[in-house]
């Protein structure tokens, strides 16, 4: 790697509180780490766990979700709904061997530009300490292993001689994640 | 109730009346104390003026020794010790660089300090752990008719104490009232007595003591009750000088623990009132029902 590694964070911010808070941080010229890419949604309730998994799978080292404080949701309780899904997802991530710190949910109100800065800086530092997640590379490795394994099986079967019920040439293996 | 006990230098020297009266009172109330083995000077205000790292290290050695006792609470009756030990703990927890230096220094003498012992003042313990009701039960000779000006001084309420109001502390007021004394209200209860300046710059330092004594007299107090060996020393020892410089303002100054002993009916060698230069002449009568 030519460049020093630095974590990539994908953030999903709700339009009413956290996105506005990030705007406020900008207007206030607060300075924070440039590692976050913010995607705007109307409500944190829109965050589908698949978004988080997809971001991680495509190379994000962490995902940050920002919503209104409990009780302050512009849509009454979208943030609670998110919280519920989030809690489940965190448990699942742990089972997958992904550190729970990589996915973070924060309540940030429109007035809390300072908190945007703090959370992003904190998270960047934490991820730096954890190191890259590198799922795409891992996927590629797994794919290679799977293909190699399949080849090995083929070769072994070929060596063992033809089997009447099965065709001799195996179907081409497709990379699962590439 | 058991506490690690940090007496500090003054309580072994000019302020020995404090220790001599406080320990029997605590025993009488069922509070156990265990003196920290081989404690050293807390560093007081003088050390901070030389090197805050060393001041913290000196204080931290005591915290480390206290942690060794396994008792989670530490009793520090002297105001300066109370402040310095609390301050050291704040510094250790707030400033990682300071913590690093102190941890390594302690390491060089084989000690560790986690910095989680609660440093507490006797007033705090008496009010919040023992409770006024338990204290009232022990009063056999209420101090009826004795007008006491409670004097807290600076360092137990400022800036680290959390057990009482900074501007208008009332723990001693409540305690004295529980002993049956009449509490004199005055606005100077947390004003500075002059501290070590009474010795180093008497003109400035003694003036502060003079103001306190004068105002206490003016408000009709018979005695001033203190919580600090330096305050007691300043308010008790310089009457001749104050009289020569301004006017005589003779009023005794005693430790609150001495008044407690008196109200509990403890013997004279445990109230040690003879150690005061301006003697307190007051004999409480036994309570009618006792």
């Amino acid at each position, binding site marked *: 790697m030519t460049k020093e590694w630095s974590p*990539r964070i*994908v953030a999903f911010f709700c*339009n*009413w*509180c956290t*996105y*506005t808070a*990030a*705007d406020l*941080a*900008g*207007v206030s*010229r*607060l*300075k*924070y780490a*440039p590692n976050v*890419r*913010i*995607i*705007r*949604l*109307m*409500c944190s*309730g*829109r*965050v*589908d766990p*698949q*978004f988080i998994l*997809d*971001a991680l799978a*495509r*190379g*994000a080292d962490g995902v940050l979700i920002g919503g209104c404080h409990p*009780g*302050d949701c*512009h*849509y*009454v*309780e*979208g943030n609670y*709904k*998110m919280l519920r*899904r989030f809690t489940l997802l965190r448990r699942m991530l742990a089972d997958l061997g992904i550190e729970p710190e990589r996915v973070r949910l924060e309540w940030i*109100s*429109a*007035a*809390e530009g*300072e908190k945007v*800065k703090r959370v992003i800086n904190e998270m960047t530092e934490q991820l730096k300490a954890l190191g890259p997640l590198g799922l795409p590379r891992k996927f590629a490795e797994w794919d290679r292993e799977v293909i190699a394994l399949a080849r090995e099986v083929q070769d072994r079967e070929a060596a063992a001689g033809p089997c009447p019920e099965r065709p001799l040439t195996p179907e081409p293996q497709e990379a699962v994640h590439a | 109730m058991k506490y690690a006990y940090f007496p500090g230098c003054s309580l072994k020297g000019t302020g020995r009346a404090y220790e001599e009266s406080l320990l029997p009172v605590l025993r009488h109330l069922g509070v156990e104390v265990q003196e920290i083995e081989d404690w050293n000077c807390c560093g007081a205000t003088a050390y901070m003026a030389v090197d805050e790292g060393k001041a913290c290290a000196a204080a931290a050695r005591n915290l480390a020794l206290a942690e060794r006792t396994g008792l989670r609470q530490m009793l520090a009756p002297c105001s300066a010790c109370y402040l310095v030990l609390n301050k050291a703990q704040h510094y250790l927890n707030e400033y990682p660089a300071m913590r690093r230096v102190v941890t390594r220094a302690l390491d060089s003498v084989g000690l560790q300090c986690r910095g989680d012992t609660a440093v507490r003042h006797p007033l705090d313990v008496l009010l919040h752990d023992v409770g006024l009701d338990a204290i009232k039960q022990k009063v056999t000779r209420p101090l009826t008719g004795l007008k006491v000006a409670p004097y807290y001084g600076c360092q137990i309420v400022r800036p680290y104490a959390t057990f009482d*109001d900074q*501007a*208008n502390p009332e723990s001693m007021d409540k305690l004295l009232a529980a002993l049956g004394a009449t509490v004199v209200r*005055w*606005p*100077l209860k947390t004003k500075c007595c002059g501290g070590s300046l009474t010795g180093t710059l008497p003109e400035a330092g003694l003036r502060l003591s003079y*103001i306190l004594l004068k*105002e206490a007299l*003016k408000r009709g107090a018979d005695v001033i009750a203190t919580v600090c060996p330096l305050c007691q020393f300043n308010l008790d020892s310089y009457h001749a000088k104050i009289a020569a410089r301004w006017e005589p303002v003779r009023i005794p100054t005693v430790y609150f623990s001495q008044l407690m002993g008196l109200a509990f009916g403890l013997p004279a060698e445990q109230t040690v009132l003879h150690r005061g230069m301006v003697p307190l002449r007051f004999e409480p009568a036994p309570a009618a029902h006792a």
Partner: protein
Amino acid sequence: MKATRDEVRIGFYVCHCGHNIAALVDCPAVARYVGTLPGVVLSRDYKYMCSDPGQELIQQDIREHRLNRVVVASCSPLLHEHTFRSAVEAGGLNPFYFHMVNIREHDSWVHTDRILATEKAKALARAAIERVAHHKPLEIKKVPIHPDVLVVGGGIAGIHAALTLANAGKKVYLVEREPSIGGHMARFDKTFPTLDCAACILTPKMSEVGSHPNITLWTYSEVVKVDGYVGNYTVQVKRKARYIHEDLCTGCQDCIANCVYKEPKFADEFNEGLGKRKPVFIPFPQATPQVVLIDPEVCLNFKRNKNPDGTPVVSDKCKKTCVEACGERGAIDFTQKDELREIRVGTIIVCTGFQTFDARRVPAYGYGIYPNVYTALEIERLVNASGPTGGEVVLRGPKNPDGTPRKPRSIGIIHCVGSRDKKTNLWCSRVCCMYSMKLAHLLKEHTGAEIYNFYIDIRTPGKGYEEFYNKLLEEGTHFIRGRVGEVTDWAMTPEEEGKLVIRVEDTLAGVVRRIPVDMVVLATGLEPRADAAEVRRLFNMSCGGDGWFLERHPKLAPVNTFTDGVFLAGCCQGPKDIPDTVAQAGAAAAEALALIDRGYVEQEPNTAHILDNECSGCKSCIPLCPYTAILFDETRQKAYINEALCKGCGTCVGSCPSGSIVQNLFEDEEIFSEIRGVLAYD
């Protein structure tokens, strides 16, 4: 999918915003990079995209290059999305074939490294390019606006806003918590810097409110619930029991004269407790409406204990001379209960005001300890001709030996009490310098006393304010620059005996002074009302870190909130003086009028719909919707969404197990492509 890609022709524009973006983001490099991305037929950088030429550029390019998608990388979409959508529409495209990238607030303004900031801009731009390809044409929906307005709070802000709207022919509900409108201004004696009497300028407006055919005035009432959205709010108002039928009371006050309490006995709220009132009372002579009320806490006809629901228990112990006096008017009703009313309005103006800082929180100044320490609001009542002393300034403390009340011969006014202090409120309360000087003038006029002002800085930014300061200097009022250390009652010198002593550093002279005075006035600051957080939730507004209600933009949308159709005016948004409050109230009324007179609001078409084929009928989305917009067709066993009720949060979309709900503008594919885009750099 490949086919649509081929048809996509994207135009990309990156804005320099002068130096705001260009200083940290290499805009030409971003434009070059985006130009290489698939589907992009044109990529430009330009100085100011939001300018007229910038917008025309987009329109021209759409026509000349047959663009069918546009992406602009500039500031926050909350600021200019509308501008660019309009430009795209003017160019002949559906306005939703547009996406905006925020590289100012989220990039150039918050970073320091030019290379990294440029990288980030590229990543964000790429995400937008990927996303916009999936955009679909959408229609903006128009929803009619209910023309009635709710104004919450009847201080000068609420009064002015209500009158402005009512005079424009709109129907207004004015809801006030206290028994009378008038707010803080009604308690002031004179107003700075003109010294015209507050009552003289306020009471005509109050009575106009009371008699205006377009205004429904509900005092002693509180908003308890707000539902709906801009143009269509349903509001519940609790009308508290005043034990008087408002429509039957004529304001004759015979009941007060005939109360069994011959003398007023209870602390009178309007006069800051300096005066007394009876259990049946009218808050002050000019109260609007002119209707009495009964305080069940002290009235003899009520028991001191409460019913389980919190309502007081009628004892019927009193002789009820008030009822007798009221006679056949029959306005008094001890069985009256709180009542809930529901109203429908299109817009809401919140003017709930402030509270003054509790001076007890600064114990060093002795309020509540020394009787001769006053708050400024108490002095307002004390110098007022209709106040508790008839305008005579006499001390609360011990009287003269002959029994007459003492008058102050020297007075210290301490500025900034509770303000500019990290331990209490850090903000400057803006009005205290001026009102302190006003009180200095009035006290001097009333007593001839020696007056000392203790200030940190004198702040007089207003028309005629500095001139007023100058007038005070001419009057011989002392101004000492220094924040007072303490107010005590112990004397050092004979002249200090029996006085309050102020210890302060005269910072301009560089000396510490002790100044004995008879009276201390604390210029307490303004702070958000204790229940501001609840009120904020009620109206779905935001609060700043300091607790004041947050305006949508500090400069360009000062009376708007983040909730459309809810506006702010007066001190609930931050400390301000009467002229600014009135100006803001007018502005809020104008914003409401603008909405009402347009007649409709445009709604973002970001609503959700269910793909009928894919819905499995699991019903898991139905309880998630806070607006009950999702319904279930039992015969077909499918859910469907009533788009008129849908607000577009997307919560149902995010949790549909079969992925069969689609949110316009936030379709799964759009978001996935955005994720792909932001991560596809390096």
